[in-house]
């Protein structure tokens, strides 16, 4: 049994066309878009019932006709690093809500961790359950195939001002003193844990700043065997599995301001826990954990 928002990182990897009953929004959008498996955003009751019966109602994203694109998105500025995929997703979700965007333009071919962040951001600011990246995602070899004859409802443009708007909407903090740094929403891949470990290696975190790194249990085991957990712990950080502050509703004591590389966590934690958020790159966040001060900015 897993307890992770990223089951597709630890062995639960459905194939193209497979019918699923998933609940976690960032996993749902990954399942539909990147894997080409089929799920609606289920609730606790319906996923439980599906687990017992092996069945789920045949509607919504289980049907071909509902998987076609609705909006064309022209990306005019290069989107390459994780932070930019997060900003693109956060801007896009708020506009398209639960429609199906088809993205074209200056997208540098992404890998798992970037699509993980992009989908999580788009399903936080909006309710995006599926998107197409023609040439990358399996149900759209071309823009034409992504829309499959459905009329384009709207064409959107992502440029420098849209990127800045997303950044400013995410960064709601006024105070630069950082009490807490949270990395791993959705749960970190092993490469991400390694990156954090290599950035803190041989350094000490600010004593008044907590660093929590979240990853699935199986990847924490791998990180431990590889020495990454020890590197993070020796710097003063903590590596956790199977949870996060948004789900557990638990933060280090007395946190007022936190920093994260996750658009999703920067979106939800201020609402859920009343804390102020800074959003930035992994490097911005690790520097904040070491200095206790936020110095990130939009490059």
């Amino acid at each position: 049994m897993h307890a992770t928002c990223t089951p597709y990182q630890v062995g639960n990897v459905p194939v193209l066309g497979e019918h699923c009953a998933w609940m976690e929004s960032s996993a749902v959008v990954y399942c539909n878009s990147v894997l080409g498996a089929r799920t609606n955003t289920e609730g606790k009751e319906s996923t439980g019932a599906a687990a017992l019966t092996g069945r789920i109602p045949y509607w919504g994203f289980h049907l071909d006709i509902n998987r076609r694109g609705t909006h064309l998105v022209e990306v005019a500025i290069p989107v390459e690093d994780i932070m930019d995929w997060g900003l693109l997703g956060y801007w896009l979700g708020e506009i398209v809500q639960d429609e199906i965007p088809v993205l074209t333009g200056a997208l540098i071919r992404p890998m798992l961790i970037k699509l993980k962040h992009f989908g999580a951001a788009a399903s936080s600011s909006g309710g995006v359950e599926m998107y197409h990246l023609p040439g990358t995602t399996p149900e759209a070899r071309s823009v034409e195939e992504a829309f499959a004859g459905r009329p384009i409802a709207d064409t959107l443009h992502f440029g420098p001002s849209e990127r800045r708007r997303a950044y400013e909407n995410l960064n709601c903090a006024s105070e630069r003193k950082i009490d807490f740094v949270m990395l791993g929403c959705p749960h970190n891949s092993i490469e991400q844990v390694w990156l954090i470990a290599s950035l803190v290696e041989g350094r000490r975190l600010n004593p008044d700043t907590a660093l929590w790194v979240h990853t699935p249990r199986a990847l924490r085991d791998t990180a431990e065997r590889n020495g990454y957990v020890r590197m993070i712990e020796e710097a003063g950080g903590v590596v956790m599995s199977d949870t996060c502050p948004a789900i557990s509703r638990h933060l280090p004591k007395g946190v007022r301001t936190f920093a994260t590389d996750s658009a999703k966590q920067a979106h939800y934690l201020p609402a859920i826990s009343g804390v102020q958020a800074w959003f930035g790159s992994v490097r911005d966040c690790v520097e904040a954990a070491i200095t206790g001060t936020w110095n990130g900015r939009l490059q």
Partner: protein
Amino acid sequence: MSDAAPRTIVLHGRRVVGGSAEGEALVTRQTISGWGGINERDGTIIERRHELRGQSF
């Protein structure tokens, strides 16, 4: 809605429990996130940039 004359909107749905009720409608054009957008203890909308933030339904 407060500056306009009250108007009637009929909502059709599937009945789960019988009976009738009436009350003032809390209206928004913005979506509300069921997870992370509502304080489930007091029914308050908590989404940080929502136009109904702080209001309870």
